[in-house]
């Protein structure tokens, strides 16, 4: 059996047996109420969610861009051996992938700007402050996750299309301009993620003193 299948089976069996055991223990002793996601969400610090959002936004965007660039780059280099004219024109696919990475970076910088510190004792007692700080945490996590995953898949899409565009261009140079339209659509979806992220973080208010 291949190593991937072995790993997959091991992970699946361990995971499902652990989950079954824990679930049965809680159900059979009547402690089901102790598994409380509300308790977890309410007691975790908003900073956890903020930092996760920031990290995910930049990291996943970069992964998407990297996947796109290597897919395209390999094809350009390979096709360029026999048809050197394609190399300059096809760099535009690489630039589209790079744009995806820049979206992620912008959101990460914006989110870091909104990240503020607060004193735990003060905020936990005041309902308004607590609501806003916790909201800020979840907003930043959501924005980061949204932008990150959108850019991840956008980058992958642009990469595959760009690679085929390079090879088609090498075969027949009239095809390139039409194929570029497909890439533009692929890049537009990355922009959607950026817009949603910006909308989400516009409501963020963190800190000890929040004015309405």
């Amino acid at each position: 059996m291949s190593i991937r299948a072995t790993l997959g089976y091991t992970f699946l069996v361990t995971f499902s047996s652990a989950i079954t055991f824990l679930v049965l223990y809680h159900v059979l002793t009547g402690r089901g109420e102790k598994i409380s996601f509300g308790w977890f969400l309410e007691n975790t610090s908003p900073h956890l969610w903020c930092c996760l959002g920031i990290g995910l936004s930049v990291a996943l965007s970069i992964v998407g861009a990297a996947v796109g660039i290597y897919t395209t780059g390999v094809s350009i280099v390979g096709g360029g051996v026999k048809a050197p004219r394609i190399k300059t024109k096809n760099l535009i696919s690489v630039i589209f992938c790079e744009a995806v990475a820049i979206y992620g970076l912008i959101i990460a910088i914006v989110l870091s700007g909104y990240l503020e510190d607060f004193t735990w004792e003060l905020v936990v007692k005041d309902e308004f402050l607590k609501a806003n700080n916790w909201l800020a945490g979840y907003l930043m996590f959501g924005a980061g996750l949204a932008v990150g995953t959108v850019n991840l898949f956008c980058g992958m899409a642009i990469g595959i299309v760009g690679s085929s565009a390079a090879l088609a261009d090498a075969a027949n140079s009239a095809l390139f301009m039409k194929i570029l339209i497909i890439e533009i659509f692929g890049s537009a979806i990355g922009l959607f993620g950026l817009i949603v992220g910006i909308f989400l973080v516009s409501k963020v208010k963190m800190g000890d003193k929040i004015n309405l």
Partner: protein
Amino acid sequence: MSVCKSVLILISLLFSVSLVQCTEFVPVFMWSSNKVNEKVPALHKISQDSFKDDVLEHLKENPFVIVFAEQTLSPEDFAQRDQKGATLFPNLEKHKKNSKVSYLPYVQNPIKALKHLGEEVTEISVSDVTESLQFPLTNILIVDLNDARDDEHRFDMLKRHDAAVISIYKEIAKKHNNILVLYTAHHTSWVAPEDVVSSRKIRSLLAVNERSVFVKNNYSLIYYSEASFVLDKSLNTNGTAVTLNFVDEKENTSIILTGTSDQLQVRFEFSSSTSVGYWILKEVVATYNNTEYNLNSTALSDIYALTTFSYHCGDQTFTGENTNFELYFSAFQVQLFFDGIGNVTKFSDAYDCVGFTSVPIWSGIFVTAVLLLIMTLGITMMMDIKTMDRFDDAKGKTITVNAE
């Protein structure tokens, strides 16, 4: 082939299990009233047969053999020291200075060896030994030290047995002048035998010490131990110990527990109206010398449980935000019955104030899971990289590149 393998494994398992069961090495501490040439044991672990030969050598003098048999003993017990640093066997230690003592740390089944010597053996229990007991006229007397009490620690029991051994020896020494005494055990301390009742080493759960109180009322069960209070916690003085008697009363959806002692009165208000199926401690008020101290704080919101569970905390403190009064219990367990207590006498399972996993642990698990997922995806992608071999042709022309 696989049948052979499984049979082999089964046989080796049974062999090793039987090996474990019969190799028990217990220490033997022996001395004789006649000073004879004691042989130094040659081997570290002495088998049953060589111990039998050794005892037969001693029996040539026809002494009266008395064996004090603990239930369990091991060489570590002789090395153990109690809290003051004194040995557990002070009398035996003193006796070592007076007569020649021979200590064999690992002897295999000494009691069985003695029983197989072919001499007459009588076995009595140490609780039967009284002042007026006529020691039976056998050659070998085994006194079983099997009178362990439920609530004593092992080292207290060993100390007591040590005093008993020496006192019995002194009694017998007055009557006989040729005695061989052995202090040994039936089993080692650290391997639990299945069919012999070993001395209890664990304090029984319901044994309460003087400062712990368990009260059953109409609507509640409460247990606490070592209650104390400080009037001003910034002074860092020791708390004043107090014993509280609890009574309860029910008002609509809350139960009020009032604890009174001669100086201090504490009132706990538990309410079940905040959330269905749960009760929560809403208010704590302490009255001392006619002054009321309000002990409410945000920590009170952690004291809750389902109505079918109890709440337990070791180290429970009640302190107010605006006062310096502090009430402390070293153990605190309470269970409320909003429909009347009925026949219940025991606590249900407890919601503990210190949970098994805390929020930081769960945060760490969550973030680690995210990172592991990412790493798994990365490794899967890397394992997917394959060399392009579509156009490989072992017999074809190799590619030539003109480099100019």
